[in-house]
């Protein structure tokens, strides 16, 4: 592992010295996202847990794809993508607390090569815009889950009422299921079927 110990200027001697590590593919494994309901926060965590329990007890298959994504991970994805695709000068990238990364290598070619390695390691090569720096996933208030079932199911809502779901579709876009989710405080994405698996605390 290549570790760059980039020290502050001599004029700043006496101040704490920063020890940052050069950018590169290894950063993709440093800060990971989660798929556990336990990674969610506050009341939303319990709301999702209760909603998922109600669905599984009724025979609905629940496959969770994502819950929490640390903002530091979004930061790494965003800026590596922008160095590669927008030609951002690594020297201008703002620092982020908790991410001791040095984007600027001894040469601009080396900086670009390292950013390219990160883009591949994060699998964002085909993504045609910069990964956003903010999302409900960053604040532990969103979950992506695929839902499916066969026949008729009867989950219980948060008020203890059994709701028979016999309409289509048998996915997370089912109107009755969306209403049940809302009783728990788990809201379907406001953009409707633009993003089928996405649920959150506020529909965003």
């Amino acid at each position: 592992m290549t570790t760059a110990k980039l020290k502050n200027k001599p004029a700043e001697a006496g101040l704490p010295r920063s020890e940052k590590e050069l950018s590169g593919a290894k950063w993709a494994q440093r800060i990971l996202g989660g798929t556990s309901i336990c990674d969610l926060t506050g009341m939303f965590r319990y709301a999702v847990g209760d909603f998922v329990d109600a669905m599984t007890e009724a025979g609905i298959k629940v496959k969770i794809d994502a819950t929490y994504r640390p903002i530091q991970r979004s930061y790494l994805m965003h800026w590596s993508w922008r160095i590669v695709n927008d030609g951002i000068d690594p020297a201008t990238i703002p620092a982020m607390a908790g991410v001791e990364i040095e984007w600027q290598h001894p040469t601009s070619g080396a900086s670009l090569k390292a950013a390219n390695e990160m883009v591949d390691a994060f699998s964002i090569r085909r993504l045609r815009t910069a990964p956003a720096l903010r999302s409900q996933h960053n604040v532990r208030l969103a979950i992506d889950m695929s839902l499916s079932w066969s026949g008729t199911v009867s989950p219980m809502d948060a008020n203890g009422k059994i709701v028979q779901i016999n309409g289509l579709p048998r996915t997370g876009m089912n109107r009755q299921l969306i209403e049940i989710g809302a009783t728990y405080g788990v809201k379907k994405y406001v953009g409707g079927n633009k993003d089928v698996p996405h649920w959150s605390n506020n529909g965003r």
Partner: protein
Amino acid sequence: MKTKIAALIASLLVSTATLAKGPVPKDVRTFIDNADACEHFAGEFDGGLSKQRQKEIERGVVRYCQPAQKQLKRLTEKYKNDPRLTEVIRSHANDSVISFR
């Protein structure tokens, strides 16, 4: 009486706020919808997701960011003499729309 006056003042304030906001033309509303969805999908991606989910998000980015970027250019020109709509458009021109390529 006091309650009626308070209700009247509240209704006047609401009306004033509504007038200040003014109507937003359909083409600007369409842009806002696309720009919001674009930013949403840009915030969803993660290489740790299933391949199927990654593809969904990549498609979502193209579906909403591409038209939003085109609309941004066109609407900025179309409403350049309307400061209110220019501000509405500018406030929704997020990084994800601008960065799309």
